[in-house]
């Protein structure tokens, strides 16, 4: 059948314009399709998330109730942990436990001829004063005590000779474990 065009020839759209128009129409259709798909996707994602949030909230509330039911255990645990932390910090504070141990070891090695005179213990050293009437006894005492055991350093603080007492010597023993902790 022949095409009948009643429009005047000057108003008829040219072939190029028609083809652009067709392409644009196709683009509009694709755009609408994209719009529909994106709306669907957004609604779907929001719905899924809302459902998950709602079930997550229910689960959270249920566990929260169980935790609240154990509040007494929780209070006891916090008290327990708090006590242990504080006791631990007291144990690591200044004390002479190791120095007392050093003094005990040194005193064990004092034999005949050497007399214990005094001792002073602080958190960093144990100082002991002994006296003896002969240098041989002193040498024996030194041989027995100046050995690396629980202490890291032995220092002679003073050495005197008094006619009424004999040799009066003062040694300081330093705790080895405390030295290594400081390093």
């Amino acid at each position, binding site marked *: 059948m022949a095409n009948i065009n009643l*429009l005047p020839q000057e108003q*008829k*759209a040219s072939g190029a*314009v*028609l083809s*652009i*128009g067709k392409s*644009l*129409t196709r683009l*509009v259709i694709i*755009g*609408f399709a994209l*719009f529909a798909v*994106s*709306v669907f996707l*957004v609604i779907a*994602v*929001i719905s899924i*998330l809302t459902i*998950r*949030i709602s079930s*997550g*909230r229910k689960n*959270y509330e249920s*566990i*929260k109730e169980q*935790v609240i039911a*154990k509040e007494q*255990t*929780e*209070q*006891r*645990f*916090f*008290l*327990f942990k*708090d*006590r*242990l932390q*504080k*006791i*631990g*910090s*007291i*144990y690591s*504070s*200044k*004390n002479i*436990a190791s120095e*007392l141990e050093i*003094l005990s070891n040194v*005193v064990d090695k004092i034999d005949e001829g050497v*007399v*214990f*005179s*005094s*001792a*002073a*213990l602080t*958190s960093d050293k144990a100082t002991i004063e002994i006296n003896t009437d002969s240098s041989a006894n002193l040498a024996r005492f030194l041989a027995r005590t100046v050995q690396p055991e629980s202490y890291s350093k032995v220092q002679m603080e003073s050495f005197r000779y008094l006619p009424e007492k004999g040799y009066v010597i003062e040694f300081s023993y330093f705790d080895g474990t405390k030295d290594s902790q400081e390093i």
Partner: protein
Amino acid sequence: MNAKTVLFPAVLIGIVGILITVVFKEGYSRTKILFNELSVINKNTSVLEDRLELLTKLTEKLESADVTVVTLPEKNSVLWVLYQLRDASVKNNTIVSEIETREVVKGENGITALSFEVKLLTESLPQIFSLFKAFQSSAPISAVEEMTITQSPANGLLTVDTKINSYWAEFPTELVPLTEPITDLTTGELATLERVMGLSMPNVNILTAEPPVRRENPFN
């Protein structure tokens, strides 16, 4: 006619473009908010689950909680400490000749310390070592800070002057919020617990209430 053919779809394309932009922008921001909310809920749930699991398995460990409270009490523990010192000195033939309290120092971590000085008299050094070994392994917790031992040249009697600290600390008043995680005992805390479990506890006699007894009149 040419303009009409192109303009109408072009306007439609513009409208569709705007709509798609709006949908993506709105959708993205709302989805982001929901994702954040979900992640917060999941995080809080996980924290609570861990807390519940920890609290469920803690029952056995908490049996020793009382021992830690005796070791570090809430109130001034100096009387208990002195009781332990006297007890150890009696067992080691040592006389407590002087006790003098010094200062109370409140530490930053909530621990309060009361220092006191004690003078002891004894006959032999092993007794001193044994006394302090027993004293330091007793509860409530205390720390011997300084000590001077002097032997009298006249009678050989040993005088021990020592400075001791006794400690106490107030109980915690607040629990960790439900949204914050709690942790099990650390290796250090377990080591402290082991040490505390080895301490000798003070003897406590619980007096039970009895009904009043009618006293006989000795003058009848």
